[in-house]
């Protein structure tokens, strides 16, 4: 059974379509990254998943029930960007509350330790740094044996070390067979952590696959080289370079050429066919970030 199932879900706010006929399934044990530019509908999608909002049409099922039932059964833990904390209580008291409210709770001590906040259990919640607050939110989301953990921009406000520690903890959760769904702005996180990446754009699913597949889907590879011949007859040579097959972009600065090609093999072959002598030739795949930009930009262009 899928952990999460969206079936042609649509959510509008007035005239704005935040989620547009979205269908997707998430399965236990998957770590899934949800990517998209601002306004792509990431937060709305998470809200619908968690039952914080109701879809205008379509259905959202979580472990075969409605979102609210799944939460009440203690199967879903969530950490929201917008999730505030109760103030004037201590970190320990707040985590104890989360454990008390959970139908299948862990021990308070264990939850505190796993989130790395056992040292600050006696501190008042309103006296925490941004990174510590995030850890408390994480503790609230993992107070019991959830089968799905939903995280919205979980590492915002954390420094690099804290971020790494956070993902180490998160990976442990995924290794226990939980499904983990997270929205993030840091594409390197999605690249390094997720087994599956969803790219959302204007409320629709633009791409769904592994990070490698998404990068391949963007189609392009980067080719760069130095060309001494450019010093002599730059203009004429540039003209011939622009005629190379499968080119998507070409950028010349000094005698360095950077291009993107949808078929790097063919482009490089043709490059040698020009009778030039490129030095320091490099062919590389696009990073997830560039792939993401390429995919969403292509969609922008198509819908414009």
């Amino acid at each position, binding site marked *: 059974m899928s952990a999460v199932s969206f079936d042609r879900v649509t959510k509008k706010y007035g005239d704005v379509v935040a989620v547009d006929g979205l269908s997707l399934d998430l399965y236990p044990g998957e770590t899934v990254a949800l990517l998209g530019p601002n306004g792509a509908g990431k937060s709305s999608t998470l809200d619908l998943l968690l039952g914080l909002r109701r879809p205008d049409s379509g259905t959202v099922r979580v472990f075969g029930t409605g979102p609210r039932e799944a*939460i009440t059964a203690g199967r879903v833990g969530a950490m929201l960007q917008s*999730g505030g*904390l109760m103030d004037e209580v201590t970190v320990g008291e707040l985590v104890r509350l989360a454990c008390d409210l959970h139908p*299948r*709770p*862990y021990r308070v001590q264990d939850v505190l330790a796993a989130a790395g906040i056992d040292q600050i259990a006696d501190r008042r919640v309103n006296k925490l740094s941004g990174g510590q607050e995030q850890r408390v939110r994480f503790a609230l989301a993992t107070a019991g044996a959830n089968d799905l953990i939903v995280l919205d921009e979980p590492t915002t406000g954390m420094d690099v070390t804290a971020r790494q520690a956070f993902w180490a903890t998160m990976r442990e959760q995924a290794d226990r067979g939980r499904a983990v769904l997270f929205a993030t702005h840091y594409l390197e996180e999605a690249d390094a952590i997720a087994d599956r990446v969803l790219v959302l754009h204007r409320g629709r699913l633009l791409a769904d696959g592994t990070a490698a597949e998404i990068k391949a889907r963007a189609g392009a590879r980067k080719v760069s080289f130095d060309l001494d011949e450019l010093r002599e007859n730059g203009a004429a040579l540039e003209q011939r370079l622009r005629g190379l097959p499968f080119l998507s972009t070409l950028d010349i600065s000094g005698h360095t050429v950077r291009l993107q090609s949808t078929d790097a093999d063919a482009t490089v072959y043709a490059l040698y066919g020009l009778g030039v002598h490129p030095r320091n030739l490099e062919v590389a795949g696009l990073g997830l970030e560039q792939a993401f930009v390429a995919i969403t930009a292509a969609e922008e262009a198509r819908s414009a």
Partner: protein
Amino acid sequence: MSGADSAIDEAARTRGPEKESHMTTHATPHARTSGGPRFTSGALVTLEVRRALRNKKFLFFSVIYPALLFVIIAGGADSTTEVDGTGLALPAFMMVSMASFGALTAVLMGNSERIAKERQSGWVRQLRLTSLPGRGYVLAKTASAAVVSLPSIVVVFVTAAAVKDVRLDAWQWLALTGAIWAGSLCFAALGVAVGYSATGDAVRPVTMILYFALSLLGGLWMPTTTFPHWLQTLADWTPTHAYAALGRAIELGGAPHARDVVLLLAYFLVFAGGAAWLYRKDTLKA
């Protein structure tokens, strides 16, 4: 084995053995020891009460302040002259006024500002991601306010008895405490409604205006008999007037008047209905 425990086991079974094998070290959920059905809201009620008792400023204003006002207003008055048309001497009259005022402060202020603030901070949203039933939050807020309002009532009574020799029968003290405490629920509901309708900066002024208007018009600060006639007529229909009248009837040795009880009950239904409606609207908007 309790019902809750078997429900947990049931949930574990349906998830299948494959999932269980992943659970190591601290991943074993510990079994709940308490028997019977779980009262999930209890945990939040406990924490809210503890937090309220920790808030010194709030405690001062709702527990000490009404008793202090009582001493200031009734301190110089003699215990025989009765307040016009009430059959009560000023100390006895003001004792009920201030006890009602204290309870009003605790429940109205306690609910409205906190709810508005916690809606804005996103804590209410966070709570909706737990198994806590929606009404549990409102219940916890009201319970914690009620825990603070009880001492505020008792402190006024003790002060009145000690400083101004107010003497009543034992049943009257108990009935007074019960009536004023129960009557404060009406204003707790109003506090919830305000907390869910106003946001951020607006909530304090709105609460204050309601609080002063209700206190003043209801005759909690001074007898409404000093008001001009038209204002007396208006005051007669305020919930605070009916509220204080409950206590005064008991002080005179009788039961509260049916009209006051019905009026207060009607207000309670309106406030609670409004609160429920606003709460549902807020939930859909989230």
